[in-house]
C-alpha cells in the first residue's frame, strides 16, 4: 500500500506492505537515525514523534500512520545547528555508545515541550520508556536538566 507522511517537515510518499511497522518502513527508506533494539516496544530506541506524541515506531503499523506528521531526531537539529537538547546531551557526557541517544533526545524534547521546568522525578518518568545500558542514566538526567535550563534562558 501507499501513504503520505509528513516527515521532518517534508511530505513524502511511502509504499509498504500492509502489515509493516512504521519502524521498518522508515528505516528501509533511509531514516536510519531511528534505531531498532527489541521490536516489542520495550527499549525506546525506535521512538519518533507521531503527530507530536512520543511513540515506539515498532509498535505502530505504517498503515495507521497515514497522513500524519513524523519527527525524528534529525528533524530537531544536525551537527551544524544542533537543538539545545542535543547539545546538552553532548555537554553533559550523556552520550556513550549513542544507540539509545536519538530516542532519549526525543523523549527529553517531548517532555520539555509539555513541561519546560521538570524536576528530577518528572525527568526520570519521561525517560521510563528508553533503555540505556552504558550510562546508568545519571548523565542523561543531568542533560535533560541542563537542556531545560538553557531553553528557558538560564544556562
Amino acid at each position, binding site marked *: 500500500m501507499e501513504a503520505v507522511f509528513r516527515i521532518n517537515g517534508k511530505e513524502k510518499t511511502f509504499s509498504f506492505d*500492509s502489515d509493516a511497522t512504521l519502524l521498518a518502513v522508515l528505516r528501509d527508506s533511509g531514516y536510519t537515525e531511528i534505531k531498532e533494539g527489541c521490536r516489542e516496544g520495550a527499549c525506546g530506541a525506535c521512538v519518533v514523534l507521531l503527530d507530536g506524541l512520543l511513540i515506539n515506531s515498532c509498535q505502530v503499523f505504517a498503515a495507521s500512520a497515514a497522513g500524519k506528521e513524523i519527527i525524528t531526531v534529525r528533524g530537531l537539529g544536525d551537527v551544524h545547528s544542533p537543538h539545545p537538547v542535543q547539545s546538552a546531551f553532548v555537554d553533559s557526557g550523556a552520550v556513550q555508545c549513542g544507540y539509545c541517544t536519538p530516542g532519549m533526545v526525543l523523549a527529553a524534547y517531548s517532555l520539555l515541550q509539555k513541561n519546560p521546568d521538570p524536576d528530577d522525578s518528572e525527568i526520570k518518568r519521561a525517560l521510563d520508556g528508553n533503555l540505556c545500558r552504558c550510562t546508568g542514566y545519571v548523565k542523561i538526567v543531568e542533560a535533560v536538566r541542563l537542556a531545560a535550563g538553557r531553553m528557558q534562558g538560564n544556562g
Partner: protein
Amino acid sequence: MREIRWYYPENLKQLPDLLKREGVIPHGGGTGILRGSLNHIEGLIDLGNLQLRYVRYRNGKIEVGAGTTYADLIEHLSGTDPDHILVKALKAAASTPLRNRITVGGSAAFFPVWSDLMGPLLALDAEVTLTGEKGGSYSLSDYTKNGELRKMSLITSVQWKNKSWTSFYHRESRTKVDYPVFSISILLKVRKDTIEDIKIIIVGTARRFTQCLQIEESLKSLTLDQARIEGIGSKLDVQFTGRRNFSAEYLKHCVGIQLERGLKAILRS
C-alpha cells in the same frame, strides 16, 4: 508479507458490518495486536477517524471514549482531580511512549497483564458501551466475565459515576517499568469520621481480579477510630497462581501486607 486489508471507517454506523467479517478486528492504536501473531488477522479496522478520543461529563458520569489513550486520560484528570485513582494508576502503567498509544477501550477489551487500568475502573463500578452485535451498556465486571460480549462488538466508551473518592493504588512489580504482578485499588468515602463506602479490588489473582467484599462490609459504617486493620491481610481470602520470580504463597503473603498498608494509609489521610 501477509496481506492485511485495512478499513478506515468514518463513523460508527459502518462498524457493525465490518465487525462481522471473518478475521477482521478493530485496531485502536494500542500495542496488543503487534505483540501477538498476525497470522489469524485478515483485516484491521483503523478506529482513528471515529472521534472516540474524548473525555466528557454527562448525567453525573465521566464518559471516556474508547480511543482515549492513557496519556490523554492522565492529562485530563490531572487537571480536574489530580488525586484521582486513575491518575495514580495510569502514571505507573507501561512507559511514556506506550501510554501515548495504549487506549482505554483496547485495555478494557483485552485486559492484558500489564494493565493498570482495570483495578481502578472496576473499583469505580465502570460500565462499557458497545456497538455492534451486542450493542448496549454493560457493567465492566460483567463484560470481563462474559466472552460472548466481545464477539463482533466494539467498546466505544467507558463511563462511571463522577463521585469524589479518596483513593489508594499500589502495584507490585519487579522493576518500575514492568507488568504489575498484582495491584490493589481502594476507594473510600468518609462522612463525619464514618466510613460510608469503600471499594477494594485486587487485580492479578487467580481469577484475574477479586473484589474484597467481606472486608468492605466489615469496614462500612465504622468510624475511623473503630476500624481495625491489623490482621486483615493475613485473613484475606484470595488465591494466586505462581508467577516468574514470585510463588503463589509469597504473592498471597505480600498482597496481605500491602493491603493493610493501603488501608492504613487511606484511613489516615
